[in-house]
Structures are given as structure tokens and as C-alpha cells.
């Protein structure tokens, strides 16, 4: 019962009872999705009723690379023309 082959890693996302969206709660090892779901229920929700749980095999997630952080995320804040702040809002538009 060792080796991550039999017990792959799963990422757990939980939406709390009155929460609006699923939030990453943590990860766990489980042999398959059903067991991952049950383990997540024990580990991250204390079986509180009315919550929604998503489990995703960690291998299914593609993450942005930390090495490329700069070119990927730097918002080029010094180039104001990239930000939609120069528009005159036409009169009569209310819900913008």
C-alpha cells in the first residue's frame, strides 16, 4: 500500500453551505474518485451537510510555471493604453 501509483494525489475543492464558489481546500491520496470524494468529506468538511465537493486528479491540472512568472503575469502597468480607462461612458448607459 505504498507508492503514489496506487494512491494518486487528488486536489479538493469545497463550496461551503452558503459559499458562492468552490475554493481549493487541500489535497489527499485516494485510489479512485469515489474514495477521494469520501476522504475529502472526512478531511475537509467534517461531513457538514449542504456542501459541494469537487475532486480532481492532480495530474489533470496544468499550472502556470513559476519560472515564467514575470512575462506571464506582469501587467505592464506602465502602458496605460492596455487598461480600458480612457473611454468616455456614453450617456444613458447605466449598468456598466
Amino acid at each position, binding site marked *: *500500500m505504498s507508492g503514489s501509483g496506487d494512491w494518486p494525489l487528488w486536489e479538493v475543492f469545497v463550496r461551503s453551505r452558503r459559499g458562492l464558489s468552490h475554493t481549493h481546500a487541500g489535497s489527499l491520496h*485516494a485510489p479512485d474518485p469515489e474514495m477521494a470524494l469520501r476522504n475529502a468529506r472526512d478531511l475537509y468538511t467534517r461531513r457538514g451537510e449542504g456542501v459541494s465537493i469537487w475532486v480532481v486528479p492532480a495530474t489533470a491540472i496544468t499550472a502556470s510555471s513559476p519560472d515564467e512568472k514575470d512575462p506571464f503575469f506582469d501587467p505592464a502597468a506602465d502602458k496605460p493604453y492596455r487598461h480600458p480607462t480612457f473611454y468616455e461612458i456614453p450617456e444613458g448607459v447605466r449598468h456598466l
Partner: protein
Amino acid sequence: MTTTRAPRTAALALGDDALVLSHRLGEWAGHAPVLEEEVALANIALDLLGQARTLLSSVGDEDELAYLRQEREFRNVQLVEQPNGDFAHTIARQLLFSTYQELLYAELAGGSGPFAPLAAKAVKETAYHRDHAEQWTLRLGDGTEESHRRMQLGLDTLWRFTGELFQPIEGLDTDLPALHGEWRSAIGSVLRRATLTVPEGPQSGAWRAGAGRQGLHTEPFGRMLAEMQHLHRSHPGAKW
């Protein structure tokens, strides 16, 4: 709390089942195959301990009942006192017992007896316990050759203790023998899906395996009790 007084024999029978099984599952702490499974077993143990506390305190002081009764005064079925064995053995015990407990609590929750409030709460927990055991029965039974062999061995070994589950309990107006058919078909369908076979042996042996309700227990139970009660007996009257 209910105002109807719980009948003592029945409360002790159901309470002792939960208490003893909870203690057995607690023995897995630190020893389960993986961390996640350890949490699951501990969770089930805690649910059962909660049920035991409610049931025992309905007929007396829960600590006195748990820690100061002798082996012969315990009314649990012999199935729950059986040692954990390997993981498959524990799962077999869980499947056989939680399937029974879920049926019984569903029945009690539907009635208006003194156990209805407890049963209404406990039946949800028990459904989860049954599901957990079922999931593992399917995986072990339909897993490797070795896991299949061990799962079948666990079921075969424990089978003779299952007849006792359906003996009538004094003070419990549930028709326990009538639950037997439902239990058997539930077990049968899980085992079929798990590629396992329903054991063919008798459900109670020649010496009538399963006299726990009468206070007659199997040999491993004495040692379990000694460990469970040791501290309380060494320091009588201590508060914690």
C-alpha cells in the same frame, strides 16, 4: 432528551454494540494502511462512541457503565468484539454490522419508541459507515487475488457471529428476525458485485456462537476490556 424511559436491557445492548465496536476501531489509530483511511476509521469510531454515550447515559452513568462493568455484564453481540485482524477482516466486520445497524436504526427512527430520536440521528451516520464498508468490500473483493482471498476469509470467519444480530432484544419491540431477510439480500448484493460469495456456513455454531446478549463473550473481549478499563480502575473516582 426523550421523556419515555429507555428500557435498560435494550439500551445496554445497543449501547454496548456501539461502545465496543468504537473501541476496536480506535485501535486502528496509527496503524491504518493510509492516513486517509485512518481518519475514516476514527470518524466512524467517534460516531459510534457518540451513539454509545447517548444510549448508556439514558439508563445510568455512562462512565460507570463503560468502565466498571465486568465482562459478563456487557450485552454487546460477539461480532463487534472480534479483534481487528487485517484490514479486510475489519472491513468484513464493518459491512456485516453496519448493514444490520442501518436497518435497525431506520426501523427505530420510523417508530415512536424511546430510541426514535437517537435512531433518527444515528441512521445517517450508519448509512455512511455502511457505504464506507461497501466501497472497500468492492475494492478488496474485486481487487487483487490476495485482497480477494483476504476479504473472503474475513467474511467466512465472522459469518458464524451474524445469527446473533437477529435475536430478539428484551424491551425492543422491533421484529429483529424479520430484518434478517433484508440484511441478507443487502449483503448478498454487495458481495455479488464484489465477486465474493456469501458464506455457506451456519450463522451460529454448535455451541451457539453469539451469546453476547446474554453476557457470554469470546476470549479476546476480556483483554480488550482490561485495556479499556485499566485507567479508570487504577484511579477510582478520578475526574477527567
